[in-house]
């Protein structure tokens, strides 16, 4: 396993998980939620080679950073962006589709910190079943977000898809600033296209239009900013 290893108490690192427990349970459980963490650099990530088949693990919990899951069939590729709070199980590949036909690759978009929720971790937290429910429930959340992505990619206008995508990302990982909502995620135009089912040149054109209207602004650090009143502006755009 590559990268320097440290440990965190998962309930401190992911406060939302802590909300699954009462104050009294939390006091008892905290010390039992220590997990190994790994810091991973930007770039391709051989997640399956790294961890092997870990059927008994709960999964890998992202604490910081962003990961792209690229699904490809022939020349087509669609990606999913996975970020803080999401749970991955990259070694899972049951028979819902043949691996030779549809392939998956992982790419770290930012320096990423993950907690390894291994079988020992699963054993330790089993005394607090509500916590196990909350951890596994993170995978359900990913599925719901993917379902919204399918809706976005059905919109006729590419600029509406792009703007809706950034609102969708802001809902999960955005931060309010006086200038608007900042999304700390560096995405290329091609990756945006793979997220919304559009070609790269169409995305570039749409981003240019949206930038001209001050709706989607690329920041110097590679992140993005959208207006605080995005729901109203998106309504307007969808109504055009």
């Amino acid at each position, binding site marked *: 396993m590559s990268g320097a290893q440290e440990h965190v108490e998962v309930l401190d690192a992911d406060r939302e998980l802590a909300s699954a427990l009462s104050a009294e349970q939390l006091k008892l459980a905290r010390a039992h939620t220590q997990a190994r963490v790994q810091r991973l650099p930007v770039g391709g990530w051989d997640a399956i080679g790294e961890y092997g088949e870990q059927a008994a693990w709960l999964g890998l919990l992202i604490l910081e950073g962003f990961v792209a899951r690229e699904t490809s069939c022939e020349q087509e590729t669609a990606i999913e962006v996975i970020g803080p709070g999401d*749970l991955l199980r990259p070694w899972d590949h049951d028979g819902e589709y043949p691996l030779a036909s549809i392939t998956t690759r992982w790419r770290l978009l930012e320096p990423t910190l993950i907690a390894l929720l291994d079988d020992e971790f699963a054993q330790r937290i089993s005394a607090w079943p509500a916590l196990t429910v909350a951890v596994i*429930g993170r995978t359900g959340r990913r599925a719901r977000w993917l379902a919204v992505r399918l809706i976005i990619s059905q919109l006729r206008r590419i600029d509406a898809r792009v703007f809706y995508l950034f609102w969708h990302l802001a809902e999960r990982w955005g*931060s309010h600033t006086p200038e608007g909502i900042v999304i700390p995620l560096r995405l290329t135009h091609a990756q945006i296209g793979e997220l919304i089912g559009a070609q790269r040149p169409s995305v570039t054109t749409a981003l240019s239009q949206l930038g001209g209207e001050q709706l989607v602004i690329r920041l110097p650090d590679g992140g993005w900013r959208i207006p605080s009143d995005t729901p109203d502006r998106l309504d307007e755009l969808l109504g055009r």
Partner: protein
Amino acid sequence: MEDLGGRDASRVLGPSRAPIQPVPETSVRIARLLELDPDLGDALPAAAFSAARDKVLVRVETFRVGPWKPRLAGRAPRPGLAVLVIDGLLVREIESAGRVSAELLGTGDVIYPWDIDRPGAPTGVWCAIVPGQVALLDESLFARIAPWPVLAGAIASRSTRRGRVLAALALTRRMRRIDERLVFIFALFAERWGKVRPDGICLSLPVTHELLGRIVGARRQSVTTALGDLRVRGLITALTDGQWLLAGPADPAALLAYSRATVPRTEEAP
């Protein structure tokens, strides 16, 4: 990370559609999880499997065709609670920005029928198209499987499967041709639910053209045209009683290649 939830998102995301018909009556019973779904215990040694099979009990609810709303969680369902689909076929639809998207869930899928992320986010509307059963995966179930943590891993694996299928469905949005989208999803369905017979793979899937359109992101009329074309080309044929016959392997790439080798005549996606 700041929670931006509930900020008038319902206007953007559109209203969730309430079921029009009443939810059919259901029945609830207690059953052994590993008898309902033995594959969950694949990683257990034989003796542990036997012990777990006897001790891990779940509440199981039947459902009939029609709008579906599970009642297993009692009066206070909590977000994050899941159910395991034992058999039957469910559809989850979401509506947003004037568009509807659908997914099919069946045997072995772990789903979260009570979950919403935040007020205003699109809420799924559930409907059963084949009657079946679901088992409640609540805190008491996870307390019972505590001696066998590998079972929690198996449930987590099932829960991620839905995401993998949705990720594959996202690929259909990259395909311009509706017939190719249909070939792709029928190959996915065949891999999961198909039965091989001498003339191809048979799928029992009572889906309308409209529902197929919502799954692949196309209009009903385009689906009807594309299915007519696929039937002429001998790739996908609607049989009687919700059965479909798929020629060739349950392999999306191979079937797509075969499809592309024939003369295409259907329209492209918008």
